[in-house]
């Protein structure tokens, strides 16, 4: 960070800042030099921070009314929906908030994939981001169990049973997770405790994620290194703050639209039936944001194999900075990678679609092909492309392409 040393104006400010440099920190955050060409795909970091805060605040309120007990959990959720003042609103915001959170995180991740934001010197930011993503999935899963409906119960059963695939100790691990011989009250209470804890762990990781970001500074759509501060950067406040807020308002309009008009569109009707350990619903599927992984799990015709491949599909992302051998960050200058990027996006959407359907016939076949392609993309295409691809020459600065275009149009006149 090549900023000038900050000295507070007031005497008290100087006294305080020399003891706890909070003013220096806030000055750094507002003055933080940001590439001036950031587009709207870069606004999702701020949106995600907002989502986390919404989930923590609404969750805190719901915890004041929710009862974590198999005999009362389902009823207490209905009590929130019917009796508690604005309980319906708070719960719908919390439940749909998780979907909006994942929507934003997927856009955020694919933005990083497109513009090569995970590459040197930003590997640690990427890895922390992946840890946040994994924690988000764990948190969302445990939260989904709390209403104790049929989907809650069977999601808990199926997901915890994934661990029974571990050789030798699998059964003991599952019993330990359950605190019994099936998903029951001990499972519910511990999931509640952990569901409350996880968001704060995520919050801590978000602080590290932003800290790690502020060392090299933001990547940008052109993907070249910038001098900071320089003519190519603008201070975070007010330029990026205003842009982020504008994007956030658009995001909130969609969020509010779902909460007020179709609050149950992303949930399953079966979860309004109280959990029954004797009957499995005929068609159980996870929430939409986990569907691609569910499709990968079912694509492998072996229990242990399926579980291993599913976890591998997640952890392979951690190694992406080293699997991608290309020196060029942005896909704008990588004509082939750009094509493969969109194929990967399509592949993940196909996996999501397959995950929502029963594992039979054509669905199973397509699911298997899409699973294989997913791994081929990361293990073969990414490393080979770095050596084979003919990239487009990079501009000298982020102003250069814009200015030379202008110069050209002016000279044409």
């Amino acid at each position, binding site marked *: 960070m090549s900023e000038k040393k900050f000295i507070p104006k007031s005497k008290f400010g100087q006294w305080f800042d020399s003891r706890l440099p909070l003013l220096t920190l806030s000055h750094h955050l507002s003055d933080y030099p940001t590439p001036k060409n950031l587009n709207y795909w870069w606004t999702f970091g701020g949106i995600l921070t907002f989502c986390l805060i919404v989930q923590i605040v609404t969750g805190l309120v719901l915890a004041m009314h929710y009862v974590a007990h198999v005999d009362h959990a389902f009823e207490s959720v209905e009590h929130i929906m019917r009796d508690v003042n604005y309980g319906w609103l708070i719960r719908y915001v919390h439940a749909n908030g998780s979907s909006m959170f994942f929507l934003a995180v997927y856009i955020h991740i694919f933005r990083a994939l497109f513009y090569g934001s995970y590459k040197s010197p930003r590997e640690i930011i990427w890895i922390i981001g992946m840890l946040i993503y994994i924690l988000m999935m764990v948190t969302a899963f445990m939260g989904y169990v709390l209403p104790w409906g049929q989907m809650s119960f069977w999601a808990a059963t199926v997901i915890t049973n994934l661990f029974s695939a571990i050789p030798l100790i699998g059964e003991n691990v599952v019993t330990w997770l359950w*605190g019994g011989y099936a998903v029951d009250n*001990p499972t519910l209470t511990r999931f509640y405790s952990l569901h409350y804890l996880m968001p704060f762990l995520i919050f801590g990781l978000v602080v590290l994620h932003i800290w790690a970001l502020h060392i090299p500074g933001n990547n940008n759509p052109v993907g070249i290194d910038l001098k900071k501060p320089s003519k190519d950067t603008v201070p975070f406040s007010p330029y990026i703050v205003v842009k982020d807020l504008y994007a956030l308002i658009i995001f909130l309009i969609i969020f509010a639209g779902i909460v007020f008009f179709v609050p149950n569109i992303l949930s399953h009707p079966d979860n309004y039936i109280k959990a029954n*350990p004797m009957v499995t619903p005929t068609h159980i599927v996870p929430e939409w944001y986990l569907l691609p992984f569910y499709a990968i799990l079912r694509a492998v015709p072996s229990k242990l194999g*399926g579980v291993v491949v599913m976890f591998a599909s997640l952890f392979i992302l951690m190694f992406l900075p080293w699997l991608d051998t290309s020196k060029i960050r942005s896909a704008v200058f990588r004509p082939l990678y750009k094509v493969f990027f969109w194929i990967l996006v399509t592949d993940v959407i196909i996996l999501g679609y397959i995950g929502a359907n029963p594992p039979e016939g054509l669905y199973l076949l397509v699911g298997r092909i899409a699973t294989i392609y997913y791994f081929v993309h990361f293990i073969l295409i990414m490393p080979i492309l770095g050596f084979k691809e003919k990239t487009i020459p990079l501009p000298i600065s982020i102003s250069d392409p814009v200015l030379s275009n202008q110069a050209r149009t002016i000279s044409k006149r």
Partner: protein
Amino acid sequence: MNSSYTILATIIVLLFVFLYLSWVIVSNKIIDNENNKKIGKRRDFLFTASYALGAVGVGVSVWPLIDQMNPDASVKALATTEVDISKVEQGKTITVLWRGKPVFIRKRTKEEINDAQSVKLEELKDPQKDQERVKKAEWLVMVGVCTHLGCVPLGNKGDFNGWFCPCHGSHYDTSGRIRKGPAPTNLEIPRYEFVDNNTIKIG
């Protein structure tokens, strides 16, 4: 309780072995170094010993925090269930809850028993004779939890007229053996006994 004490005792014994070995190694070094008049190595032993003791201390205090998640005494106390089977008709299944899991008790028909007994073991993914899975050929008692990921299979369904799991498509035969699909093993047989002709005690 007992297992935790065993673990604790093992850790302490290992600690002493470790301390003794490190003493032997470190004192060798001290002798070597005495020629060069370096005596700082004695302190290394103290460091290693303190770290080891610290690690054991952390391990011992973390164990209760981990073990508290295992089934508690009240859960273990519900380990047996008695079921009256006098009203079950031929070709019908009743489902009872045992340790929070459904248990299928089926009075099988002649054809089902014949089907189950005539299957060749080579055809099975998890080879087991039907006779090993029942105490009386007529009565099939098994845990109604799919061995894949724990869903409850549906009765009288699937390619083998036994059970079919709707979650990920596992087919079981009339003896509850896995025949097709992702489940790795046959449906589990719980420990049970016939108390008399009309009562089964599970667990």
